[in-house]
């Protein structure tokens, strides 16, 4: 089958983020180094010494969800459905065209609809079991993140997957789409990730001592942790033949991806495992480390992540590190959406020739010394970019994207 594999390209992007909804607003936000950080309004933060997050305060589900009641979907699924609609339109496709081909919908997530679980648990504690809302209880099932998209677009010849591999889930979902298209199983795929701000996750990270009091400063000597975030990123992917046949605009080619799962510790990242994942991605993409023009890091801004991740990058790249940035400095840690939104950022960077900045940066930590493109985006002629997604439990996924017109032909791993 090795000769029959298809090249896979990204032709549509849909994004919902705290620095902008829709691809143009997101791209402008990335270029400008905008920050989504603000005090949390999603839930009561009484008792926490500090409580900033990158919350989305202007999302209107009814603008995007028309074929089902928005109330039948939790906030994460609403983001995912909205982003999918945007991705289809951005690709210059009608929904009928997507319905007409065999497709895949894969959505990664960390928390599913935990925000609804927060709500139901709160009701249960204050008022008992009798007052629980059946509509809310029904929409908690994380399968609705992908099923909601399928229902909204009326897809029938479709595989529907929700990928629960936490903070690397977006890359897992995109990687799965790459496999499905390159092998010829499907013609198009809507892949990415979604998560909504929730009290459970904020509290958990706060308790681990990993929430920053003010802003997220990846690779900075004074970094104090993450800000939780929310949103969705969905990539419309198709085979190169399909894109060329319909004269589609191509953002980027998906060259390949790598996975590693070490399960060595619940929360501590493992350097060797991350290095293994990066190497697997390069091999799958048919590139050498020296081909990578910049790395979109997982870059959470915690003490442990940034040192371990840069150590792993150094292990693979040696002393010549490409520029290594973290868009979490702008949009926070959007959990299951994080690597999907970062993939979208990489695709935009390739198309438009710029590297998004790492904002809030003051002094680079010598323990994780990288050129993180501090505070201001730079113009760059890019051919190959690498997007890291690392998750609790040692679930890692690294994606490699290339500018399609100059990208090397992918080899089969």
């Amino acid at each position, binding site marked *: 089958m090795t000769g029959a594999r298809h090249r896979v390209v990204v032709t549509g992007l849909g994004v919902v983020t705290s620095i902008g909804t829709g691809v143009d607003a997101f791209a402008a936000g990335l270029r400008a180094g905008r920050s989504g950080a603000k005090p949390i309004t999603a839930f009561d933060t009484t008792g926490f010494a500090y409580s900033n997050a990158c919350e989305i305060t202007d999302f209107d589900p009814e603008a995007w969800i028309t074929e089902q009641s928005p109330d039948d979907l939790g906030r994460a699924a609403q983001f995912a459905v909205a982003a999918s609609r945007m991705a289809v339109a951005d690709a210059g496709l009608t929904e009928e065209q997507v319905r007409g081909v065999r497709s895949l919908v894969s959505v990664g997530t960390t928390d599913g609809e935990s925000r609804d679980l927060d709500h139901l648990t709160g009701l249960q504690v204050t008022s008992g079991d009798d007052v629980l809302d059946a509509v809310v209880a029904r929409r908690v099932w994380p399968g609705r993140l992908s099923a909601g998209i399928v229902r909204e677009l009326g897809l029938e010849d479709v595989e529907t997957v929700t990928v629960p591999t936490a903070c690397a889930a977006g890359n897992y979902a995109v990687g799965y789409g790459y496999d499905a298209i390159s092998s010829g199983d499907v013609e198009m795929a809507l892949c990415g990730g979604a998560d909504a701000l929730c009290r459970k996750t904020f509290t958990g990270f706060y308790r*681990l001592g990993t929430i920053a009091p003010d802003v997220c400063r990846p690779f900075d000597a004074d970094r104090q942790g993450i800000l939780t975030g929310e949103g969705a990123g969905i990539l419309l992917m198709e085979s190169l033949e399909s894109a060329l046949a319909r004269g589609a605009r191509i953002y980027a080619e998906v060259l390949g991806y790598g996975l590693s799962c070490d399960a060595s*510790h619940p*929360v501590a990242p493992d350097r060797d495992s991350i290095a293994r994942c990066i190497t697997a991605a390069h091999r799958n993409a048919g590139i050498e480390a020296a081909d990578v023009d910049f790395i979109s890091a997982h870059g959470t801004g915690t003490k442990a992540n940034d040192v371990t991740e840069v150590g792993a990058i150094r292990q693979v790249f040696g002393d010549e590190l490409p520029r290594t940035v973290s868009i979490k400095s702008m949009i926070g840690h959007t959990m299951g959406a994080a690597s999907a939104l970062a993939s979208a950022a990489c695709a935009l960077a390739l198309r438009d020739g710029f590297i998004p900045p790492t904002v809030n940066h003051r002094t680079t930590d010598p323990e994780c010394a990288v050129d993180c493109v501090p505070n201001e985006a730079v113009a760059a002629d890019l051919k190959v970019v690498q997007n890291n997604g690392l998750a609790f439990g040692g679930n890692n996924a690294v994606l490699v994207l290339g500018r399609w017109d100059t990208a090397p032909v992918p080899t089969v791993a």
Partner: protein
Amino acid sequence: MTTQIPALDETEQGQIKDIVCDILELELDEVTDTSLFKEEHDADSLRTIEILASLERTFGITLKQSELSRMVNLAGVYAVVAEAKAQ
């Protein structure tokens, strides 16, 4: 200048020991004041954070994460809690 920190009474020490044994899933007689949580009782960093959180709730105190490095055994926890209560 040194400040005298009042020692915990037996009831408080007992409460702490109950919390630690509950979270580390140990019998009360398996733990001594100096037996090490990590090396001798298989505690990991998440369990020790759970202990910290439970102590904060039980005693109405706030403990800095940096105190975790001293909370390696019961004696260490007694000292950290006594200091926090004195503040």
